[in-house]
């Protein structure tokens, strides 16, 4: 694709003396020049030799300059087309530029004028190619960013954690409890940093569409049983009761079981964090014509009204800095994105001191089919 040789310029003009004049002027400046006396020959040469620039006379017998411009601008990427005309009017210039010409040169012109226009055209071409190269590079980097992050950021963390593991192994003999405590704390913080990267990668994957999600029919009551198994120990540890009430005859929902499990356990996990001992978390489901909805509510400390609109924003903390240690700050953002990718919705309502309720709505299979049937799968 790259041409190491002299830039190649094609002149398409029916006037022989003009072709020769242009050739001499341009060759003197170090360009390689090809000429054609009429349109179809010009197009053939252009397709074969892919010149950097073509000067095209507007008025020729046979194919008109305007048509040549139209054809070449489509056929030959990056070619710079310059119109030569004896009747330079604004109207014809505008038309040529609309059809893909870069510039125009009114007759008569001097060799210097010709060379200046050619130089400018080449500069324009270089810039265009460079811009495209940079844009492609940027897109490639964006695509590879996730892989980059997972490798470049995780591998040092893995090593640090491995060091901490080895420190823990040898620390017992050589250090007192204070030191081993510090080592464990370091380990926990690093593990949390790893989780943060993991969550953030998940979000980017959802955004660029590479987050693997199945679309299968799911029974909420079966999922609820899994949730009970998974979350019961954490609830018991904190002295919170977990009530699950999902009717068996609920319609199926369409989705990815693994990510929905993460959504549900995430919200319940939040509930456990912010619900005092003796409290209750309930997970219930119901449906109407359009939605199967899941309600997850707790009897926790609640979320202030003015903070409620922001809870799905990445890294938003209801209680500011003191919460920073409690999680990645991306949990609810993840939930929202997963719900959106399921064609669903998630909303929260809360009363301080009384508790918080999350309502998750999934389109029922019939409404889902109605909404998405026109989409190619």
């Amino acid at each position, binding site marked *: 694709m790259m041409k190491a040789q002299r830039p190649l310029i094609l002149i398409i003009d029916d006037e022989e003396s003009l072709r020769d004049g242009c050739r001499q002027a341009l060759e003197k400046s170090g360009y390689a020049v090809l000429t054609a006396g009429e349109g179809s020959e010009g197009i053939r040469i252009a397709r074969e030799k892919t010149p950097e620039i073509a000067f095209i006379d507007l008025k020729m017998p046979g194919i008109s300059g305007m048509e040549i411009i139209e054809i070449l601008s489509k056929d030959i990427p990056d070619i710079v087309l310059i119109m030569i005309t004896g009747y330079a009017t604004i109207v014809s210039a505008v038309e040529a530029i609309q059809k893909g010409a870069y510039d125009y040169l009114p007759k008569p012109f001097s060799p210097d004028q010709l060379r200046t226009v050619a130089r400018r055209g080449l500069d324009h071409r270089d810039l265009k190619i460079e811009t495209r190269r940079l844009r492609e590079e940027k897109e490639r980097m964006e695509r590879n960013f996730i892989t980059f992050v997972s490798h470049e950021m995780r*591998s040092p963390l*893995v*090593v640090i954690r*491995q060091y901490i*593991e*080895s420190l823990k192994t040898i620390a017992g003999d050589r250090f007192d409890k204070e030191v081993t405590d510090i080592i464990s704390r370091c380990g926990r913080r690093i593990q949390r940093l790893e989780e943060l990267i993991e969550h953030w990668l998940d979000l980017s994957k959802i955004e660029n569409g590479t987050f693997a999600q199945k679309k299968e029919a799911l029974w909420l009551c079966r999922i609820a049983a899994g949730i009970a198994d998974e979350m019961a120990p954490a609830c018991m540890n904190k002295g919170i009761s977990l009530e699950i009430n999902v009717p068996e005859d609920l319609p199926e929902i369409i989705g990815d079981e693994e990510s929905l499990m993460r959504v549900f356990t995430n919200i319940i996990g939040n509930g456990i964090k912010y619900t005092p001992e003796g409290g209750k978390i309930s997970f219930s489901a119901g449906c109407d014509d359009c939605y199967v909805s899941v309600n997850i509510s707790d009897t926790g400390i609640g979320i202030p009204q003015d903070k409620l609109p922001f809870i799905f924003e990445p890294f938003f903390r209801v209680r500011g800095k003191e919460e920073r240690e409690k999680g990645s700050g991306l949990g609810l953002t993840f939930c929202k994105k997963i719900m959106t990718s399921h064609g669903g919705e998630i909303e929260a309502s809360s009363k301080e001191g009384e508790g918080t309720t999350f309502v998750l709505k999934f389109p029922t299979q019939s409404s889902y089919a109605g909404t998405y049937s026109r989409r190619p799968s």
Partner: protein
Amino acid sequence: MSTKKKVLLIDDDKDFLYATKLILEKGGYEVFLAEDGRRGVEMWKSVSPDLAIIDMMMETWGEGFEVLKKIRATDTGKETPLFMLSAVDLQGPYQSFEPPPEFPKVNKVLHKPVKADDLLGYIASALSK
């Protein structure tokens, strides 16, 4: 005469080698380190370890799988326990890493970072068989 069992660790990350070496030594093993696959296979031949741990993704000499194949192809490497190390998230699609049937046997796939107790436990159980 040392009666310590010999463990060979092959990974292109020097820090990971060093950190893991400390754990293995604490567990009472004589540890040999190789920073790339080529040296790993050479060391395998010269020290005949009782067990080797190979990183799946090394920068030089292709993947750790090549090393595994070469080690399994040696006389001493046919039945010796070989572990593979992966930095891939085993929560994800690699959770059920199953080498293809024609693939040389992998005794255990470990996920980085490896907990000291887990590492020593798996090695002890592989060596006791």
